[in-house]
């Protein structure tokens, strides 16, 4: 919302000084989900994303926003950036993905973005979902439009508070959280979308930025491998069904569990034969963000993101990709 306000200010020449003042002013103390101060890496990529967006280089802006989302998945502003960028480039699956994440973070966004979400659902052939959303949008068409530019972040470190001030600030943030929780409890929200974003299903997995077929090649052996210390596995990409082109040799963080069920079974012990796939076996890989972290690609919902490429799974996947117009044109 702060960004939107700045963008609206920027539309009138008179208020440019206000924009400048806000751009160079001290970093406002973050509230809610964005509690941590921005790292320098994040700020650099956020600024690259803003630059690319403002220069209408949608592909680069998308990549940068996706990187930022990978770094800060609970932060609304990067999803908003991704949504704005992909609205411009017409990548409707990404628009829907970003908006669904935004709605999960702040359900009130659903009213403000009903039009854009309805449009995205329409283009994805999700007509049953699109109809109520478009009807809702008719009631809110007079709300302000989406961002026309994205302001850059300033590379200024957050001022460190002295211990007394920090205590007061922590108390203020805590009180704000309690108030927000109370407010949220009073409102009746439908949580279907929120549930959908975490459920382990192909319906959700296809929202990943990248979906591909790959053959397992091997893994990096290490004595530290454990339930929560996954090895780096190596796959060879045979086909990219959705998403950007990647190097054929793909390093993967090979998780032994999905995100929803992280508890280690009793007696579990790493055994190469039981825990790792057969060499040259074929797999469907769902990569939520096509940006490697610490040199490895992370799969959608941990181990769920790697599915056997058998006929049933492939048919299910192709049907969904075709249903929602998501397949790369060349695949």
């Amino acid at each position, binding site marked *: 919302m702060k960004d939107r306000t700045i963008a609206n200010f920027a539309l009138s*020449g008179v208020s440019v000084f206000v924009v*400048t003042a806000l751009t160079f002013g001290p970093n406002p103390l973050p509230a809610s989900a964005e509690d941590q101060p921005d790292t320098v890496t994040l700020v650099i990529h956020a600024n690259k994303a803003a630059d690319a967006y403002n220069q209408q280089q949608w592909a680069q802006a998308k990549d940068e926003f996706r990187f930022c989302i990978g770094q800060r998945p609970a932060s609304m502003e990067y999803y908003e950036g991704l949504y704005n960028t992909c609205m411009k480039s017409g990548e409707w699956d990404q628009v829907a993905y970003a908006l669904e994440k935004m709605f999960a973070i702040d359900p009130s966004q659903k009213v403000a973005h009903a039009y854009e979400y309805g449009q995205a659902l329409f283009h994805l052939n999700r007509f049953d979902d699109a*109809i109520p959303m*478009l009807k809702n949008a008719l009631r809110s*068409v007079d709300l302000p439009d989406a961002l026309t530019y994205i302001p850059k972040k300033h590379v200024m470190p957050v001022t460190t508070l002295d211990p007394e001030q920090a205590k007061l600030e922590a108390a203020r943030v805590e009180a704000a959280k309690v108030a927000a929780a109370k407010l949220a409890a009073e409102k009746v929200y439908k949580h279907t979308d929120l549930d959908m974003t975490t459920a382990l299903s192909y319906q959700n997995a296809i929202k990943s930025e990248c979906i591909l077929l790959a053959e397992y090649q091997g893994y990096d052996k290490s004595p530290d491998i454990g339930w929560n210390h996954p090895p780096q596995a190596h796959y060879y990409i045979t086909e990219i069904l959705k998403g950007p082109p990647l190097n054929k040799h793909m390093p993967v963080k090979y998780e032994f569990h999905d995100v929803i069920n992280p508890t280690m079974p009793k007696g579990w012990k790493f055994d190469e034969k039981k825990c790792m796939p057969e060499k040259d076996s074929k797999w469907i890989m769902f990569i939520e963000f096509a940006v490697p972290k610490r040199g490895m690609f992370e799969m959608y919902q941990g181990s769920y993101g790697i599915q056997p490429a058998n006929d049933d799974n492939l048919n299910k996947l192709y049907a969904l990709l075709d249903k929602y117009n998501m397949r790369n044109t060349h695949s």
Partner: protein
Amino acid sequence: MKARSLAILGALLVNACGVNAAHADTPATKKEMIHTMLLQIYEQRGSKEVAPEYLALIALRPTDDKLHFRYGLYLEKAGDDRAVTQYKAAVNLAPANADYQGALGNAYYRARNYTAAAGAYKRAVECGGGAKYSALYQSMLQYLQQARDYAKYQKQLKDAE
């Protein structure tokens, strides 16, 4: 620092003036888009809600001849006589369009208004739709002649009695 401020101020001004409005739609445009999308969905599904969507779009774009024509086609397919009204509106907005004139002729024909149908077919032929509508026009003229002859014959029979 001052130079950097000025550079960014300049960049902001450029951005503020050269607004890319690809999805910064006006409320009116948004309404049109929404009704167009809903219409497309309902048409694909053969839903009854097609008609209200057409009416909503016509209210937003009353001078869109194509829209009147498409709504006319929809009504004609549904066997609704109100198709004539929509075709008439399309013809009024684009009188030189042979397809609109021909469609009006077809609608009149279905409503058994043969004289008006012949007139519409004639105009369709005059507007360059000869290949499509001249046969219909000729057969309509023949039919009208036969109808006149039959009426004359009936009158003669009545007079003879």
